């Protein structure tokens, strides 16, 4: 039997749980118990009871967790510590890292097309998570319009190829620069803001960009979207028959035609970009600018009075994040071959935020794992796909209560004395 605290009372626990279950029953009664069917209703009276019962057991479980040593050790968080934890080992696991990178590079040659597309999507979210992590996790600027930069990246590839004749390889730097300047432009007016107001203004920016993409039909194609061309490799095309004067990839190498080659190409480039960006973000954190980001997150007033130029620090965080988001957008457009504004709603921003929050604000490894898990898990659990958003939302709330610094909180490396 578990050891319980002295102030644990079985009677009180059960009374609390009954009260919680009663409130839950009332809470769930109208929406889950009475279902609209045209202007009439159908009864589903058992649903509120089931949900109330779940709440009853959950409440008991929480009481047990809070009052036993084992539960406290396992579940009760460390509270709201500042997130700086000094570890003195540097690069302890670098050979494992090499193995993972090597597996990542050979993966597409052994994978089926389906899992390759899932992996591409996962890597796109890793990239988005890394980008938002710089803005929210490191600099502490809650950006709810991050999807705007993703959209800028995707549209600069699609529209760039339509109007300017850009290819995939030119679109990558072009989109990165364009998204970064968008980040700086949008960052400039919000320099004085922080916290909630900043979040709402960025949300407003994000929605404005989406609505413009949606309504400016003549330029962007509106709700019908825009098509993005397939990427090429040294002039070799990945379609079945090449356009005038081109050579298809499979003909050149004497292979049978398959759509998997284009995904392998996208995957490899994307994986390379993710590796480089991970390294850049990890390195930046130890450089003066990265330390300034984190200092600004903890206390802006103190930073400014110590002479840190908050304009440069904030704008660099915004444009760095935006640039990574823009790159992710190019890959998304190339992977889908077609984009429209409905891919860039606020929900997408919230999803990226959920990735960053679950991984741990500021933690690069955590964000990568969270992005991969959150993309692959819904593929494995198809029958739960309806509940995906519900689970995301609930985990955001629970994480904030239980582990506000994420499942894998960041650790700061100390300088070693030699």
């Amino acid at each position, binding site marked *: 039997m578990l050891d319980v605290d002295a102030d644990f009372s079985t009677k009180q626990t059960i009374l609390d749980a009954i009260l919680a279950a009663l*409130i839950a029953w*009332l*809470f769930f009664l*109208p*929406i*889950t118990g*009475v*279902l*609209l069917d*045209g*202007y*009439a*209703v159908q009864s589903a009276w058992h*649903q509120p009871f089931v949900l109330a019962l779940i709440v009853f057991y959950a409440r008991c479980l929480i009481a047990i967790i809070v009052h036993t040593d084992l539960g406290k050790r396992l579940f009760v968080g460390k509270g*709201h510590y500042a997130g700086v934890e000094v570890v003195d080992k540097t690069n302890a696991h670098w050979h494992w890292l090499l193995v993972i990178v090597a597996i990542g590079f050979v993966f597409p040659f052994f994978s089926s097309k389906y899992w390759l597309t899932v992996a591409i999507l996962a890597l796109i979210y890793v990239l988005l998570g890394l980008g938002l992590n710089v803005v*929210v996790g490191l600099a*502490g600027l*809650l950006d*709810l319009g991050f999807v705007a930069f993703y959209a800028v990246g995707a549209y600069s590839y699609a529209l760039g190829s339509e109007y300017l004749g850009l290819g995939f390889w030119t679109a990558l730097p072009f989109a990165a620069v364009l998204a970064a300047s968008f980040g700086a432009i949008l960052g400039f*007016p*919000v320099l004085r*803001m*922080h*916290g*909630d*107001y900043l*979040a*709402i*203004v960025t*949300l*407003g*920016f994000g*929605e*404005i960009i989406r*609505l*413009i993409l949606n*309504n400016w039909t003549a330029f962007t194609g509106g709700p019908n979207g825009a098509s993005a061309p397939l990427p090429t490799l040294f002039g070799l095309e990945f379609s079945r028959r090449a356009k005038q004067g081109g050579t298809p990839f499979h003909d050149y190498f004497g292979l049978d035609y398959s759509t998997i080659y284009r995904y392998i190409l996208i995957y490899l480039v994307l994986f390379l970009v993710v590796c480089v960006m991970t390294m850049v973000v990890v390195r930046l954190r130890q450089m003066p600018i990265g330390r300034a980001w984190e200092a600004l997150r903890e206390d802006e*007033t103190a930073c400014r009075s110590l002479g840190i130029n908050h304009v440069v620090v904030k704008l660099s965080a915004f444009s760095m994040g935006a640039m990574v988001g823009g790159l992710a957008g190019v890959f998304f457009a190339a992977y889908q071959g077609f984009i429209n504004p409905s891919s860039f709603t*606020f*929900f997408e921003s*919230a999803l990226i*935020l*959920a990735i960053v*929050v679950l991984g741990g*604000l500021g933690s690069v490894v955590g964000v990568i794992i969270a992005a991969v898990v959150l993309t692959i898990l819904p593929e494995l659990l198809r029958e739960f796909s*309806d*509940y995906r*958003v*519900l689970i*995301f*939302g*609930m*985990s*955001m*709330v629970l994480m*904030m*209560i239980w582990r*506000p610094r994420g499942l894998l909180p960041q650790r700061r490396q100390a300088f070693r004395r030699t």
Partner: protein
Amino acid sequence: MDWMIILQQLVNGLTLGAIYGLIAVGYTMVYGIIGMINFAHGDIYMVSAYLTAICIAVFMSWWGWTFVPLILVLTLIVVILFTSLYGWVVERVAYRPLRGSQRLAPLISAIGMSLVLQNYVQISQSARTQGVPSLISGHPLRIGSEQNFVQITEMQILIVIVAFLSMAVLSYIIQATALGRACRATQQDRVMASILGINTDKIISIVFIIGAASAAVAGVLVTLNYGTFDFFIGFVTGIKAFTAAVLGGIGSLPGAMLGGLILGLAESLFSGFVNTDYKDVFAFALLVLVLIFRPSGLLGKPEVEKV
């Protein structure tokens, strides 16, 4: 430029603005008291729309009631009660455990709660657009000549009357009762209020309940007026109501109503004379501009950052 068209847009804007004002109450009071944007407030409003339809359907098609005024009054009461419960539960579950934690935590939790509420309603009630039968359908009031007139429906009159009555009741509660004094004291200085014996947790819960109740009034009125809704209406309406709260000066109750009216009129005139497609862009742009250039709003006090 036709004066009748302008007048018509003003009438529509007034109705819209009254609704925004009612929803803005929840944002402005919660922000005033705990300094966070209750991101799930728009979804509380969405829930109240569903509750309205469910109530009307239960009364009319299940129990076979036909007396419209009774149905309306009872619907209003039941929806207010249940929506208040939703407001209270959201605060209790998602915000109270975070009191005194780091700055971004409550907002992220609120975004999570907003997703939860949307998906919860979507799963239980299906993603279909739902509707209510039109209960109030008299001959609209027409002012002007045969071709050139301003039309005011009974529903619009009802909306304006109910909205202003609710605001009057609310102002009375906040200004003149012991509860209202406790709310204002907590808003001014939470620590001091709790030292003086005010149960601030309870007051914060009550503020959430008041906010949810006024969103419920708005939800009933909008649902009766437009007739259709889906699980996603909370997002855009919520942002617009928040814009109204900021415009009027966040934390100020008359400011919420004023901001709502200004936003409603501006949006209505914009969509009437400039462009309907871009009316949401207009509202969002207004939000961004107000937050950048006058974050204290029209009636709010400027925020002084203390170190």
